[in-house]
């Protein structure tokens, strides 16, 4: 790299057509004046880096991969959800007569699905399943 010291109002020439003059100095900053023909592009370097980065970011091939991966993960979440929704887990309530098993189950389910009386009522093993309509089956 060529390094040249210049004072305010002094200039350098690049080729025959480009002149750069030091206009002003302040701490940490320099103001430059540039004379150049129209066909010469002058950019702050950050703008060029940003332009290049924007071009790289707009490349679509990896994006396809990302979207595919997201779709894939979406399917995974759906699969877990369906497994949870469709699978049946058996929860067993055991206890002596009249301790409140049915009361507890009714409280969990939010309604009086199981009859509660003081006598022995649901003395057989009772299965409670989720269904579309209320129904009872005796076996």
């Amino acid at each position, binding site marked *: 790299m060529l390094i040249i010291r210049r004072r305010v109002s002094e200039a350098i020439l690049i080729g025959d057509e480009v002149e750069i003059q030091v206009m002003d100095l302040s701490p940490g900053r320099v103001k430059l004046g540039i004379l150049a023909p129209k066909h010469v592009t002058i950019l*702050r370097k*950050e*703008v*060029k*880096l*940003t*332009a*290049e*980065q*924007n*071009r*790289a*970011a*707009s*490349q*679509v*091939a*990896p*994006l*396809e*991969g*990302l*979207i595919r991966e*997201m*779709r894939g*993960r*979406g399917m*995974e*979440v759906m699969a877990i959800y369906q497994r949870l929704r469709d699978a049946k887990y058996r929860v067993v309530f055991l206890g002596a007569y009249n301790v409140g098993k049915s009361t507890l189950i009714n409280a969990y389910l939010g309604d009086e699905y199981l009859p509660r009386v003081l006598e022995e009522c649901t003395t057989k093993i009772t299965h409670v399943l989720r269904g579309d309509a209320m129904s009872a089956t005796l076996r």
Partner: protein
Amino acid sequence: MPRLETAHFGTLDYDEQALIEFPAGLPAFDQERLFLPYEQGCSKPFLFLQSLARPDLVFVTLPVELVDPAYRLTLSPEDLALLGLEESSPLRLGQEILCLVIVTLREDRPPTANLMSPVVVNLANRRAAQVIQTETGYSHQHSLAGSAQEAPC
């Protein structure tokens, strides 16, 4: 409701109120003014900026606060004017403005975020600009390896 054909997301119905406008375009994409911010349920926290004019042009962005919670955004008087913001008005991320970083995805390297040139959106008038940060020394290729990519689905 207007429709938009896109190369990556199929046909999108959108609300014109949702569009954002870059009055000055973006470096290397000076002609692209209108973008539709778009997110798929499972793509969060990524936000896509889909060009309205070019079906194949889309930028992948992340809210800057997810990449660097301590990010310091500097807006010059010119930036404020371009966005239609007042110098005195409060600028809170997610309230008055959005600050998004453009993510570059590569097949062979970890993704990077351009912290040097965030996209700032004025939520009140939906004007946007890519604002180059010259003083704070942020990288235009900040590595996202192991952070945002593993964000929960």
